[in-house]
């Protein structure tokens, strides 16, 4: 071996170079493998989608190219209404989920609500149930014809007709909002749980009232979490099908997803209208990519909002006082579609009874 090396002269250097090149190539293998996997999982279906949108028959292996699918899909007189309904549904349900999620996260993580551990688990229970059950359950409760709750209310208050119609856009927004509450809660909980109480104390010491504390301390700290949760919820609201399918389709209220389902399954032409579906999906994809990019930017800059402290802390628990009963009702109602509490979530009394720091309010400190 030694002789061979000596004879060759450059052999050891060449071998080292070869080893180096091999090692360099090996370094590229994992990203290459990952790239191929992603291409197979994402790019290939995407390419077929784009291709289908330009095929006259809508099938990717049909012959010819056309823009007719785009002109038909976007030129339909009902398209602006479809887009508007989709946006209303997505923004509405995200807002409902966000408001309830913020309320629940605050109650469970920052207040002295009794049985917090139990509530924590209960809020997440809907995630363990098939999503389609929620709209079905609400249809049983609030269907205008045979909803149990509607029938009771109609009987008790002698209404001429059912007071609620779950097969409506507000009904869909409401149910989808409820369905997204666990997601919103999961997004917001860490932000609430990790708020450094020293900032709140400092604000209170500096004379901040409740509103000032919320506006100038809590909201800025929570803002990245709220915004990223909002974008994520918006993305989910745009792609979900359970609620639009169960509650919207029977009332002929279509959002983008259910319209795509209709074009595939029920269009009277005999074949799925994949061409139009693909054209709609491209628009849909654009919106989702924009939201995904916004979400990425939000989460990428989240570290800017980190609280830097030199010591461990526990978030301060705000006493609810007599409002604990109302708060429990809210937490209860979230998990029981069979109760009307879900409809009238009571947060306001808690706000009124809001006492930021037990025994250390700014008034007690003589700051105002």
């Amino acid at each position, binding site marked *: 071996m030694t002789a061979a090396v000596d004879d060759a002269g450059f052999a050891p250097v060449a071998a080292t170079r070869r080893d180096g090149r091999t090692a360099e190539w090996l370094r590229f293998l994992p990203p290459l493998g990952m790239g191929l996997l992603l291409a197979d999982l994402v790019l290939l279906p995407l390419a077929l989608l784009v291709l289908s949108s330009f095929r006259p028959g809508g099938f990717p292996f049909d012959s010819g190219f056309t823009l007719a699918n785009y002109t038909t899909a976007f030129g339909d007189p009902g398209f602006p209404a479809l887009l508007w309904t989709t946006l209303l549904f997505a923004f509405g349900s995200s807002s409902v989920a966000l408001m309830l999620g913020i309320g629940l996260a605050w109650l469970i993580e920052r207040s002295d609500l009794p049985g917090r551990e139990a509530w924590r688990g209960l809020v997440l229970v809907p995630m363990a149930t098939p999503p389609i059950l929620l709209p079905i359950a609400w249809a049983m409760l609030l269907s205008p014809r045979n909803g149990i709750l509607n029938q009771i209310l109609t009987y008790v208050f002698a209404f001429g007709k059912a007071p609620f119609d779950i097969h409506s856009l507000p009904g869909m927004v409401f149910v989808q909002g409820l369905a997204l509450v666990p997601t919103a809660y999961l997004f917001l909980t860490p932000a609430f749980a990790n708020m450094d109480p020293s900032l709140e104390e400092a604000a209170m010491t500096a004379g901040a009232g409740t509103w000032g504390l919320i506006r100038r301390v809590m909201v800025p700290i929570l803002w990245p979490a709220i915004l990223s949760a909002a974008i994520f919820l918006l993305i989910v609201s745009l792609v979900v099908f359970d609620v639009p399918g169960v509650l919207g389709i029977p*009332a002929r209220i279509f959002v983008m997803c259910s319209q795509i389902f209709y074009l595939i399954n029920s269009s009277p*032409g*005999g*074949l799925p209208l*994949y061409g139009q579906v693909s054209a709609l999906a491209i628009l849909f994809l654009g919106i989702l990519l924009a939201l995904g990019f916004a979400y990425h930017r939000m989460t990428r800059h989240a570290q800017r909002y980190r609280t830097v402290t030199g010591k461990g802390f526990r978030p301060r628990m705000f006493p609810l006082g007599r409002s604990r009963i109302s708060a429990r009702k809210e937490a209860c109602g979230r998990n029981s579609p069979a109760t009307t509490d879900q409809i009238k979530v009571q947060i306001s009394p808690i706000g009124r009874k809001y006492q930021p720091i037990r025994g250390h309010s700014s008034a007690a400190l003589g700051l105002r």
Partner: protein
Amino acid sequence: MSAFRLALCAFTIVVGSSPIHAAGIDDAMNKLADEAAKSGDIIWYESSPDDQADKIVAAFQKRFPKLKLEHIRDTGGNSIGGRIVQESQGNARTADVVTTGAAILLPLVERKLIKQIDWRGYGLTDDLAPWQSGVVTTSVVYVIVYNTSLVKEADAPTTWNDLLNQRWDGKIGMWVRGEGQSALAAVWGIDKVIDYVRKMNQLHPVLLPSTFPLAQQVAAGEILVGFGLNHSAQIPLRRGAPLKIVVAEPVPIGTLYSSVPTKAQNPSGGTLVGLWLATAEGAKIYEDATDRGNPFISGTKTYDLLRGHAISQFAAGQAAQEAATVQRINKMIESRETQ
């Protein structure tokens, strides 16, 4: 009579006896069975629930013990057609026989994905084999359904026009798809059907995703009357629900054909299934399992139900007009067009 109506070429018949040459068909089926046995199992795309289809499959395999029939349920309607196109384009295994409506078959025929078979050459009548693209397997029959507890017999609707009575305002139900109303166009003409649907929309009908919940809701009294289907009303009827079926004239029917895809791996097996379902034996078994019978084969309940009634359906070759009519009527129902 409008030009469109002429184009529709109303296909109205009074159902009569249509004897099948049993011996000839038996020979043909035995020959097909021998050929099919060499090509492996037979795949059948159809929409019946598995428990119903299992009975048909069991009877078929009892009749042809050397063969294995596999039923694949596809309820999506359009998705059956889409699936055959994709599988054929990708050279994947597709159905050996598919049972579906003319509106779904036509695009497949236009793409040359359906085998043209001389079904009459096997001894089938013109009624059963109206075109080479398929053989009649069953027909869905549109009827009026009403709740007998809440609607007195004297007030019960007996004609299609009776359904337009103001007393049914908000209490009438119909399938969100207008296939039944569209089938009426074969006799009434499209203009009359459009007028009819507009008047029906003025009654604020409850739209349902299928005729099964329609029958159930009429039975439960949620709605009083409905433009429904005979076979979907049979389940609540068997359970003793207060429901009655009225066969109003002309009786709109929608026919389902069995066809053999061009890319079928076992075309003989597919042809055999289609042929067997068009015999008295196969049709009875199919009807007993699914409540959907063949109006052109004597001895079926559907034949008896329609005997002496004028029926209204698009002919097999009019699938394009049928699809256009269905599309128009569907849009009217969806948008609740009243003017």
